[in-house]
């Protein structure tokens, strides 16, 4: 190889390093973090009577069809119903559990999204933007709570889920479900305030609650927090998620990318120069792959 060829190669190596640095710079900043104390909702299942006013208010606020309020089936959220109330019979008691997006502090769906279509608003709502999404559905694969839902029968499909009424809360209002609840079973506020409130209720009535706030640490913590009278696994909650934020699971790999791109090209070039020993012995006919 002549000098020019060598410089060209150096250019290629430098280019890949620059790309690596670019990718790494943001990767180091880890998953998108919004405010340290986002808005959230405290859901006290001991107060919920299963009236479904919240599901109806949600449907109305987002122009969705009439919600499914059938108590006899275990419901999942759908593209047309962003929150559901499920009934659980535990120890002869009927417990109602509201289910919707958990609005994680460090959402898996957001860190999985390569177009930033799924993102966090400044006050902590996880929302989806149509113009950016390319429909890869990795958000669905990654979400520990299986929340994002997809319009499978649309040629222009949207990812749908609870957006925590971010437009209403930006205007100083509370989310539609919170506004509608007649039992004050759901409370809107800063996450730190909600945690304090939850701890207060548990301390004041220790017999009424199991000693756990679901969402305080699950999957790195969520903006939606739950109180319950019985252990959460009996209410259909996932209890195998751990306390590590999900984007952390990809951190090592993302770190490895700039490492490899910065180091490997130079190493390969070195090995190539060592095995194609032209400059070492001018008598040998030079050879190079064509």
């Amino acid at each position, binding site marked *: 190889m002549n000098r020019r*060829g060598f410089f*060209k*190669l150096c250019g*290629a*190596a430098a280019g*890949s390093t620059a*790309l690596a640095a*670019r*990718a790494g*710079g*943001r*990767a180091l900043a880890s*998953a*998108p973090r919004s405010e340290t104390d986002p808005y959230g909702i405290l859901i006290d299942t001991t107060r919920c009577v299963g009236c479904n006013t919240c599901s109806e208010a949600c449907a109305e606020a987002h122009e969705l069809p009439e919600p499914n309020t059938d108590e006899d089936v275990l419901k*999942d959220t*759908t593209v047309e119903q962003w929150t559901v109330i499920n009934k659980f019979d535990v120890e002869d008691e009927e417990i109602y559990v509201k289910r919707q997006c958990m609005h994680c502090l460090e959402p*898996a769906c957001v*860190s*999985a999204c*390569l*177009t*930033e*279509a799924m993102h966090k608003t400044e006050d902590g709502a996880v929302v989806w933007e149509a*113009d*950016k*999404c*390319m*429909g*890869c*559905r*990795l958000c*669905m*694969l990654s979400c*520990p709570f*299986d929340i994002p839902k*997809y319009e*499978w*029968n649309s*040629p222009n*499909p949207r990812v749908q889920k609870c957006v925590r009424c971010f437009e209403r809360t930006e205007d100083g209002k509370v989310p539609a479900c919170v506004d509608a609840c007649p039992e004050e079973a759901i409370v809107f506020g800063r996450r730190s305030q909600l945690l304090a409130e939850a701890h207060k209720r548990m301390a004041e009535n220790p017999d009424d609650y199991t000693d756990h706030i679901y969402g305080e640490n699950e999957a790195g913590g969520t903006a939606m927090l739950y109180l319950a009278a019985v252990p959460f696994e009996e209410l259909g909650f*996932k209890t195998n998620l751990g306390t590590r934020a999900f*984007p952390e*699971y*990809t951190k*090592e*790999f*993302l770190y490895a*990318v700039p490492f*490899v791109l910065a180091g*490997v*090209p130079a190493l*390969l*070039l070195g090995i*190539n120069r060592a*095995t*194609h020993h032209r400059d070492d012995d001018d008598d040998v006919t*030079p*050879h190079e*792959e*064509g």
Partner: protein
Amino acid sequence: MSVTTPDTATGLSADLAPRRRRFWAFLLSELKPQGKLLTTFNVISIPVMLAALVIVVLRFAGGLGAVTNLSDAWPWGIWAAVDVIAGVAFAGGAYVLCFMVYILGIKKYAPAVRVTVLASFLAYLFYAGALLLELGRPWNIVNPIIGNNFGLSAVLFLVAWHFLLYMIAALLEFSPAIAEWAGAPRLRRVLQSMTLGAVILGVALSLLHQSGLGALFLMSGPKIHPLWFSEFLPILFLVSSIFAGLSLVIVESAIAKRVFAHVMDAEHKKTHRRISFGLARICAGAMFAYLGMVVITFVHGHDAASLTGGMGAWWLVEILGFTALPGALFVVAIKRRSLTGIRLASVLTLIGVLMNRLNVCVIAYRWDAPNHYVPTWMEVVVTLGIIFAEVWVLRWIILRMPILRKPPAWARADDARRGISSH
């Protein structure tokens, strides 16, 4: 061949001139089909490709739900698992061979490089094409490439960029063959000078996107059966891409030796056996490395009890029947110098890798949920149609360009004058 005009920059031989002057006429004549039209492959592949085309139209008219069994519980099906996740592993032969020939300078494998790089490039091209069918809103695929929608913390963002760059690198690696076919000596020289840079970039990118495909599942851990999930998935995907890719090279070259004999030169025929055995040795080594890693992840995360039940048995089928067995078969066949043995081992290996990717992506994903995803016949037809279309293009190129034979005389003369060896 002697160089006709040694002082001209190009050393064009007389037979090349008309080809260059009348390129469009030449291209049109090359587009015509060669050989028999009524072959078994054509009879099977043409209806499948036509059916796939119709299904693709239905898919874009009615959404993915119109033709697939995908659902909120199983957002990825066989289009992603077979075409993209497994297909890219099978295309891994190119980076391994390029590393050996261009970086390590092992000339023994040089005759296998062009056809492998070509097959790999086409695999990426067609699987990126398959991705367009798979994506819900494919017109937004440019978002992570241009504009300000860079999801830099996303594994898929890196994989997407690596795919794109790797396709360019693979095309550059292969491009001298196009220049030889088109009769463009100056272009050939320019493209040749970029080969090493492209290889270096290509190998680095391959290490990352082969492992990156495993990293896509790192946040799906709680949903994948623990026997198939571990935090080492990226490394397991990378190591298995080595023997997946090389097994495909062994199988492909066995087929090529039969069906493309008339466009294959003596050197390619002569070296076929030697190269196959060499690749088989690397396969065996990589497979035992992989098995060692699998055993260690198993010992750390599980006990014998997790092997009971249907999923445990299924895991043993994959690991013992389609990884350990072909690995052992490679060793025995190499010892006994049995070409048939290593071909059989390669086929078993390919099945094993396909099983593994399908398991991680689809079968072991929510293994315990009711009404598990099973692909529709339309998903199967489209998957096959894409593979057939790729083989059609591969065949078209192999029949016309110097892939399985030496470069044309003028190109070799040019190389000889510049003191580089062509293969």
